[in-house]
């Protein structure tokens, strides 16, 4: 397979890293569809606090989730400088509001360290590991865990 110049080695994976407040997180790049700027969302009634509302994404209705609030941190106050990561989670497409996108990382499984045991919901529910890159700490989160299966089925 000499022509496959830029193929990833076995075990390599690409992650997209982003910032919320002073913390860094990353998700698998394969689930990210696009990244776009913040536009005001239409509020949904009877929705949880982290649910910012819905926006129009080229004719489709896209729910926007305040990832900070979803991870149990201080809710964001969206401005024009915030970005929305449009990601595919199972069969649905959702927008995740974050402060900024920082990096695309190519890592091997070896450098992903297990999450230390802390009695925090964030770690237990969403975190799938921690990466140390350039003395930064980046937390790998699993999108599927943000949206429990039962919910998507109930829709």
């Amino acid at each position, binding site marked *: 397979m000499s022509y496959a110049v830029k193929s990833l080695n076995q075990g390599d994976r690409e992650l997209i890293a982003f910032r919320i407040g002073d913390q860094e997180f990353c998700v698998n790049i394969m689930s990210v569809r696009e990244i776009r700027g913040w536009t005001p969302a239409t509020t949904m009634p*009877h929705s949880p606090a982290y649910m910012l509302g819905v926006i129009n994404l080229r004719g489709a209705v896209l729910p926007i989730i305040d990832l900070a609030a979803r991870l149990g941190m201080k809710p964001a106050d969206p401005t024009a400088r915030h970005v929305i990561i449009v990601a595919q989670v199972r069969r649905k497409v959702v927008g995740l509001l974050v402060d900024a996108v920082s990096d695309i990382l190519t890592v091997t499984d070896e450098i992903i360290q297990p999450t230390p045991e802390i009695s925090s919901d964030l770690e237990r529910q969403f975190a799938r590991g921690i990466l140390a890159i350039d003395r930064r700490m980046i937390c790998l989160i699993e999108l599927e865990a943000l949206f429990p299966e039962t919910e998507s089925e109930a829709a």
Partner: protein
Amino acid sequence: MDMNEIKEIFFQECEEQLAELESGLLKMNDGDRDPETVNAVFRAVHSIKGGAGAFGLDDLVAFAHVFETTLDCVRSNKLEPTQDVLKVMLKSADVLADLTNAARDGGSVDESRSRGLVKELEALANGELPSPSATADAPAPKAAAKAAPAAPAPAPKPTDDSGFQPIPFSFDDFGDEGGELPAYEITFKPRHELYSKGNDATLLLRDLSRLGEMTIYCNMDELPGLEELDPEAAYFFWNVTLKTDKGEDAIRAVFEFAEWDCELSVKSVEEASGDASSNEELPMVPVPFDLSILDETGSSEEGPAGARSEDTAAAVAAAETASNVTQMAAAAARVEKKESAAAAAAAANAAAQNNAAGAGQTIRVDLDRVDRLINLVGELVINQAMLSQSVIENDTTGTSSINMGLEELQQLTREIQDSVMAIRAQPVKPVFQRMSRIVREIADMTGKSIRLITEGENTEVDKTVIDKLAEPLTHMIRNAVDHGIETPEKRAAAGKNTEGTVRLTAKHRSGRILIELADDGAGINREKVRQKAIDNDLIPADANLSDEEIDNLIFLPGFSTADKISDISGRGVGMDVVKRSIQALGGRINITSKPGHGSVFTMSLPLTLAVLDGMVVTVAGQTLVVPLTAIVETLQPEASAIHSFGANHRLISIRNSFCPLVDVGRILNFRATQANPVEGVALLVESEGGGQRALMVDAIQGQRQVVIKSLEANYTHVPGIAAATILGDGRVALILDVDAVVGASRGQSLKAEMSLAAVG
């Protein structure tokens, strides 16, 4: 087009034929004795058989054949289509559908059932009256194929295993004393000179047929292999049995002009009987020649030619492999089928011509293409709205030409949209038809006697809605028959007709389709339902529930009142699934029940999942769309018309009646306190459950046609919200679910649903 595609078309047609079959049988069941109905039923089975034969679907052919034979008895008035007979036939239609499905998707069919029905059908065909025990002893009417050429074949009989049966051809105009008439056997063997001189064997045979009652078989023994085939040569010859009082001379006179170009032998039957035995030893494969195409003088010019070329084509195909008699026999069998299919097609064509005024022409279009078109039109509508808005914003002078152009565009867009939507609109009939089968089956399984009455089958609704309707409806019908309707004994004891009635109706109401399923059974046993809900921890033991609330318990997940789990229902999945699938369609479901008199389920569904006319309103800073169909009138409340009622409720007096005020912003949780009604606008709405409500909104922005966008696609169902749309400014606006809002204001807000959404 490869074989699979052709097969796919065949199965599609089968579906149509099966629907036709069932509706015809149901019509007959209701007392319709129109011969055309019987013919339509017969044609449906016949075409399925013909097509199935071409694809070698033997099971299907075999069953269809027996079915057809029995139907033919009905057609020829030998069998009175009583209710009992039709019961067997309806069951047979079900089995036929099963066999078709099995042939398409693999899978198996309940063989004992189909075998049992075959026996019942054969018994019917033999003139035995149907009785529940009528089974094995009826011998299958099987006549040997070889006997057919000599016999005048007075009545259709199943012949060989290929499932073919000769079509008898009689000319009633000439009297029917055929039994006494002298019979002749004619062998007519044209040489190729006959054709080269412009003569036509078909025309000669037709002239011959005018002399009396005639049976024709085409003999293809001389047909050579493909490599030896001379396209201009004449290979077929015909054996004709003719009963006539006109005499041999008249027969010969028919061939007067062809005499030198054919070999003709005319024998009276007494002569012929002498060499009948030797005749039978001939390895001859008789091919009956269908003359019905000749019956129509108008098409006779085309008909025979078409039939002949078809024969040749089939023969050529056959000749590739056929080198001995056995193979020829198989080939001939194929030709037979082709011919019978052609006859059916001719008959269908004739019928189609008769109905031409009634039914227009149709085309089959891939649903994806229609959907793509609909999506594009949806985008067009949004775009047009955006354009209008920006012109209005930028053009203060209101140049008339631009405005006129825009108006025209708007009208055109709207027309396009309506036409495109009409493409998707389909009558609910197919779904309703499927239900009649389910009722039959469950009635059989439970030993109940049930009559299904359907009304408004031609009510049209979007295809998507229809497709998704079948499943919940099936569940509900099962429940109605299994739980709702009592056993005949119990019904008799209660002084009711022992035959239970299930009524399924569809109608349009205020821009939605309303589907009602009513049974005249025992109604909901509220005490039992309540107890069951307490046992299953669905409600606290001391809950104080109204009758309506108890009825609605059956929609809770994990609820089942069945004492024992049966095959049909009672697994505790059902009504909650029904409710969820109806809600997913933007619909609602309601139940009303009267102990001893039965229950009525009412489903209200949107007509289309694509567009609606809406009133754009503002509520607590949010833009919402209220479906125009729900709004009766709008009014600006005056302070003097508002009356407080209890702690939290307010009523508005409209023309001397009091109507509860519902603050939309409060119900949807957009604001914490109720707005001052005097500052807003009231939308008077009429809800599904009846009764009016005044919905309070802050302001009205205008009316607009909006394209419905699913919220569920990427999010989840939100109580009080039917769907979303995209407005001219590109922002998403939510479409209000008026009935849910009204329901919530009544306090019957479905808590489970609310909490479900809150979790998400």
